[in-house]
Structures are given as structure tokens and as C-alpha cells.
């Protein structure tokens, strides 16, 4: 094991950068940067959790954004009902996520392959429509949340810097947790079941219950991201769990690299930074090429992103992490 590799340097640099964002933001007065990176860090948690089941467990869930929504709605509805203590909100949000993961996972994991992809997608869509029908909590328009989670005065989430570091610490915690899990006996079973489930069974592992447990853990981790996301936005709406959001999470994991714990973090940063900057890049390049103002071109960044995904699929299956380590999958 070598520790000084290109990959590790990039990862270390990224983590240091993430740790310094609030300091830079506060000093330069560029608050937009901090808002952007708070969001990136939160979605990175979601992507890391998805990668636990998808990258390591081979369970391609196309409904992971459901947990962002469930976490957010449990927090939001409680805040609306006047229960503002994070000590109650957060565990309850995770418990509801666990329950949802347990029920839908128990059903979905009876199936394989494409069925699994479609079923997780369908269950997420179900929750999406439930949220749409919740008139009491804003229905289609979403729910504005007036109070962030209160932690008995110990942590003040309305302070942006504090909030950022809570998110960042959660991300580090999530990465560490997944890293421990992946290298534990439990993680061996999960990865074995991805590689050859039939053989795992014949060796003596009842893989279903291990996979289901893993599915629940990932759901809860993503639920935490959902609570944070709704706290940041002071808002939650069904759009948070639209199936294209689940697609975004998959893109982050694959773009970053599913082979490692940290890959999805790289993917989250890359995708969301790209999303912010690609419109500018397009208009600048377009302007230079045509000599005309290409301000309108900004809107069409997805024209570039879409085919880019296809190219990643075809030529860079190991994602960014794979490129950095020289490992290529597929």
C-alpha cells in the first residue's frame, strides 16, 4: 500500500479545500460559494450512502432521492407542528427512513437486475406523489420551514459557518462509517453478494438479510442528508425526490467512481461544480468562436452534460477515481 499517490493527493487537497471553504467565503465575502458548497457537501453524503449499496452491494437503486425527501419532510412537518428540537427531529427522521427502506427493500430485494432498478424507482415515485398530495404540508408547492433544528443552544444551525461544519463533519462521519462497514465482515458479505450471490448462498450466507440491512443503513444515511438539505434551504418540496434527483445521485457515484468510498464525493463536487460553471464556459467559448454574445447558450448546458454522461459510460467506467488511480472498470 502506497500512501503518496496522485489519487490520495487529490483527495487530501479536496478535503482540505472543503474544510477551508467557510474561511475563504467569510474573508472574501463570497457567500454564494459557501451556499454552493454546503449543498455539495450534503449531496455528497447522499452519494456516499448510495454507493454503499450500489457500488459495494451491487444494488442499483433508482429511488435513493426518496430518502432526501423523507428526511426533509419528517423534519419539516415536525417543525411546522412546533417540535423544533433536533434531538427529536433527527432520530425520528432516520427512523422513518429506516422503516421505509425496510419495507421497500424487503420487497425490492426479492428481485434482481432491471426489476430492482425499476421497483426502487417506482417506490420512490410513490412517495413523491404522497408528498404532492399532502396539502397540509404544502402539497406540490412545498413547505417553507421557519425554524431550523434546535440543539438546546449547543449548536446554532442558523449560523452559516456552523451549519457548514455540521454538514462537513457529517460527510466525514459518513465516509468513515462506510469505510469501516466495507472492510468489516459485513462488508465482505455485501461485496461477495454483488460478485456472486449464488455462491455466497451455497457457502452458507443467507445474503438477503445482509443486503436488506445494508439497504436500510444506506437509507438512513441519506435521510440525514435530507434533514440537512431541508435545514439549509429552509424548504422542502416533492421536487427534492423527483426521480431525476435519484438519477443525479447515481451520476455522482458513477462519475466519481464506485470502486472506492471517496469516489462519490469527487463525483458530487465534479457534477455540481460543472452544473454551476458549464453554462459560463459554454457562453464564453461560444462567444469566442462566433464573435457574438452567447449569453443565451448558458441555458443549454445539459446539451453538453447529457452526451458527456454517455461518454463516461462508454470510456471511463472507473469514473474520476478510476482515472486518478489508473484503474478502469468494464
Amino acid at each position, binding site marked *: 500500500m502506497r500512501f503518496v499517490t496522485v489519487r490520495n493527493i487529490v483527495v487530501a487537497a479536496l478535503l482540505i479545500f472543503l474544510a477551508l471553504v467557510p474561511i475563504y467565503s467569510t474573508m472574501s465575502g463570497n457567500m454564494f460559494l459557501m451556499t454552493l458548497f454546503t449543498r455539495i457537501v450534503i449531496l455528497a453524503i447522499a452519494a456516499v450512502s448510495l454507493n454503499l449499496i450500489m457500488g459495494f452491494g451491487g444494488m442499483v437503486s433508482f429511488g435513493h432521492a426518496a430518502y432526501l425527501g423523507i428526511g426533509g419532510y419528517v423534519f419539516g412537518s415536525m417543525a411546522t407542528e412546533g417540535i423544533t428540537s433536533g434531538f427529536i427531529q433527527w432520530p425520528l427522521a432516520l427512523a422513518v427512513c429506516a422503516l421505509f427502506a425496510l419495507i421497500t427493500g424487503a420487497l425490492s430485494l426479492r428481485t434482481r437486475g432491471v426489476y430492482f432498478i425499476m421497483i426502487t424507482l417506482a417506490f420512490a415515485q410513490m412517495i413523491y406523489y404522497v408528498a404532492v398530495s399532502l396539502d397540509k404540508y404544502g402539497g406540490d408547492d412545498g413547505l417553507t420551514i421557519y425554524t431550523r433544528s434546535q440543539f438546546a443552544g449547543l449548536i446554532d444551525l442558523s449560523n452559516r459557518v456552523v451549519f457548514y461544519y455540521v454538514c462537513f463533519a457529517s460527510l466525514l462521519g459518513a465516509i468513515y462509517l462506510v469505510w469501516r462497514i466495507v472492510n468489516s*465482515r*459485513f462488508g465482505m458479505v455485501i461485496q461477495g453478494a454483488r460478485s456472486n450471490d449464488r*455462491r455466497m*448462498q451455497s457457502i*452458507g450466507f*443467507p445474503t438477503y438479510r*445482509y443486503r436488506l440491512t445494508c439497504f436500510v443503513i444506506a437509507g438512513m444515511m441519506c435521510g440525514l442528508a435530507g434533514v440537512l438539505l431541508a435545514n439549509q434551504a429552509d424548504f422542502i418540496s416533492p421536487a427534492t425526490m423527483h426521480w431525476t434527483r435519484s438519477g443525479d445521485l447515481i451520476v455522482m457515484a458513477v462519475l466519481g467512481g464506485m470502486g472506492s468510498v471517496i469516489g462519490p464525493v469527487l463525483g458530487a463536487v465534479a457534477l455540481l461544480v460543472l452544473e454551476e460553471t458549464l453554462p459560463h464556459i459554454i457562453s464564453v467559448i461560444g462567444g469566442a468562436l462566433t464573435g457574438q454574445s452567447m449569453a443565451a447558450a448558458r441555458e443549454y448546458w445539459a446539451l453538453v452534460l447529457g452526451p458527456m454522461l454517455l461518454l463516461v459510460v462508454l470510456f471511463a467506467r472507473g469514473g474520476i477515481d478510476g482515472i486518478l488511480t489508473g484503474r478502469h472498470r468494464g
Partner: protein
Amino acid sequence: MADALLKVEGISKRFGGVVASDNIHIDVRPGELHAIIGPNGAGKTTLIGQLAGELAPDSGHIYFDGQDITAQPAPVRAALGLARSFQITSLFLDFKALTNVVLAVQPNLGHSFHFWADARNEPALIEPALAALKRVGLEHRAAVTVANMSHGEHRQLELAMAIANRPRLLLLDEPMAGLGPEESSRMVAMLRELKREYPILLVEHDMEAVFALADRITVLVYGRVIASGDPATIRANAEVRDAYLGEQDEEFVDG
């Protein structure tokens, strides 16, 4: 036959119109190597599948150590001590050889709901796994990714995983499938070793090997047992000759 370790009582299995197992009665006693022979498509793999718990028989019962295991799923049977190998290699291709065997060791240590401790360097896992690799002569290949190993090595690894599973009975499905003559004779030597330690139900196409190793032979044709007995009896059996041994040359082309 009260002393049989594995006892199969009249199992039958159909796939649509094909009768793959037709009221099969067999048993394996402690200390014995019981070989199953029969032409391709006779239902040997299907039989192993039902014994290991991957396929459910349509009727009949399977007893292991006196306990009716017919309704038990594969993992439970493995935990009881039934270890199988696969005719068509079924390994963890993207893992290292050692990791493959480590996975086979792991269920011996109880459940795997251990989320925290690092399993990569656990002596309780690694040491038995290395020992099993050594048994089959693969210890020097421990760190190689399985996808990059040869077919012969895959067959050896299959065997190592079965042993590492701490079995009380081995179900081996054509361990010599696809091996060259030299590799085959090494495998025979290995099986002779294993036979001293474990009762074995061996499905094999290689007649020479079967007659060299088996204490008892059962002949399966179209899912039916047409003969069963010690090697000399089977060799002398006219029906077996007609149905099977006589046309060996044709039957073994696609071995």
C-alpha cells in the same frame, strides 16, 4: 441404513417435459466416496443442486445426519456441513484468490453482522483460508485476482473453497471438468487425500478416476438410477455397459 450421513429418499424433479430426477434413492456413509456417473443430461448436476438446496425437489425427502433438510435453504445446509463445488466454475472473479477462500471460511465463525472490526487482516479468517489454499497447492497464488487465473487453478480454487467451508460432507460436481491429463492426475491425488478426511459424493465423467477413487458407484440415466454397487459390480453390469460404458467414446467428446 441407519448409519448413512446423507440419505436421499425418492426425490423427483421435472423441468417442463424433462424428468431430471426420477425417484432417486441414494445415500452416502461416513468415510466413503460415492461416485455418480451418467451421460450428459442424466441429471447429475440437478441432483447435486437439490442436495445443496439450490433446487427444490418436486417430491421426496433428503436427510442429513438424520435430520430432514428437504425444506432447508442452501445457506442453512451449508451451515450444517454440506459443501458443494460447481461443475461450471462459480467463483468471485473480481476478488483475489485468498479473499475467495476467506469468504468460505467466514460462515464458520458465526453470523457476519460485524460492522466495525477490520476483516481484511483477521487471523481467524486468513489462517484457515491460507491452509485451504495450501491443501490444493495454490498458496503462492493467494494474491492473484481470480479472473486472471487459469482454468486449472479455478478448479483447484473451487475445491479449496469447499474444504474451507469446514464441511462434514463434500458434494463435488465434476472437479475434473476441462482439465488436461496432467492436471487430472494431480486432482485425483488430491481427492484421494481428501477422501480420508471427508465423506464425498463425487459426480465425475472421468471413468479412470471414478474407478480409482470410488467405494461405491451409482449410475444415472435420464434421471433414473439404473445401477448401484461397488466398482467391480458396476463394471460387470450388462445394462450399464449398454447404456453407458459401451458408448463412452461418443459420450465423452463434449465431456
